[in-house]
């Protein structure tokens, strides 16, 4: 058993026929107004089909459409694509980074070289912490320590009483 709405839709679409059509039309309170409504609905349907239906393109149209799309994409905003590819290390930034690194290197280099001038003398002197002579071979040996008074700052460990050796021991 169809409802009124189903029968109404089928009538609008022209799908009712025979006795069913006669019965439905006779059940309508105002057949003339219903027919006007049916005509409007059919007009609207035809319009929508025409305007919203899939447009089929020929091969030539499709090809030229694709070309136009691509040209439009490439010419629309060239900077957008570049931005997507670029990194933080742009050439100007690299130049500045290199210059900064070079400047830091020179500053540190100068600082290090100033700190270690070849002729520079540190405040420290050589220290003798402990010294012993073999007591068995040199029972009377003594040891003393002093520094030279001149600018060379030579630290001297002075031994006395070591056993003298023959000149042969001076051989290389």
């Amino acid at each position, binding site marked *: 058993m169809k409802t009124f709405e189903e029968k109404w839709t089928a009538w609008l679409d022209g799908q009712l026929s025979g006795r069913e059509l006669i019965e439905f039309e006779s059940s309508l309170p105002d057949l003339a107004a219903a027919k006007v409504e049916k005509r409007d609905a059919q007009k609207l349907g035809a319009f929508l089909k025409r305007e919203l239906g899939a447009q089929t393109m020929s091969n030539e149209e499709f090809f030229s459409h694709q070309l136009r799309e691509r040209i439009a994409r490439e010419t629309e905003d060239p900077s957008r694509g570049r931005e997507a590819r670029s990194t933080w290390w742009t*050439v100007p930034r690299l130049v500045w980074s*290199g210059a900064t690194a070079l400047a830091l290197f020179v500053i540190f280099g100068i600082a290090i070289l100033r700190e270690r001038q070849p*002729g520079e003398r540190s405040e420290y002197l050589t220290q003798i912490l402990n010294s012993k002579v073999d007591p068995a071979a*040199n029972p009377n040996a003594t040891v003393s320590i002093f520094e*030279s008074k*001149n600018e060379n700052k030579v*630290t001297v460990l002075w*031994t006395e009483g070591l056993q003298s050796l023959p000149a042969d021991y001076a*051989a290389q």
Partner: protein
Amino acid sequence: MELRRLLIAVSVILAIMLVSSADAAHAVWSGLVIAENVPQPAAIPPELTKFEQTLKDLFGYNQFEVIGQSSKTLRTGEEDWLASSKYFALHVDAHGENDSGYALNLKLYKERDILLETEANLSRSSPLVIKGPQVGSGQLLLVLVVKDDEETHHRRHAEPTNPISAGWHRLRKAIHNILP
């Protein structure tokens, strides 16, 4: 693109130079020296030139002849080495580096006998001279010197070197010449 590659290469080279600048190795020269008075003294060895007069004043000899020597570059400060002649040997054992220099243990051997043992802190700016036994008419001296960077570099220049370190030394020299 080429410029970017060049800049990256320069940065890498600078980084290598900075790393190599941290390598502050010193060479310690240790020598067995016979000091004596002779009518015609020979030229003093180059390692002793700086304090030739001090040695002459201290010991009263006019000739200083090296009979054994060793030059050791200290990288870790824990190295040991031997300077030896026919009868004497000086064994040096480094026990590390500190602000004032290198902690060294020195042993003077006469053949197999230890004549003298000393613990010293060898300063980079203060040579150590040890008066050893009388040998004939002369005197045995033990000398230890931390070489200046410049002397070490002169020695290094005589050896084959890689382009980066050679460039670094040239740059250091150039900066050094610019400095007042």
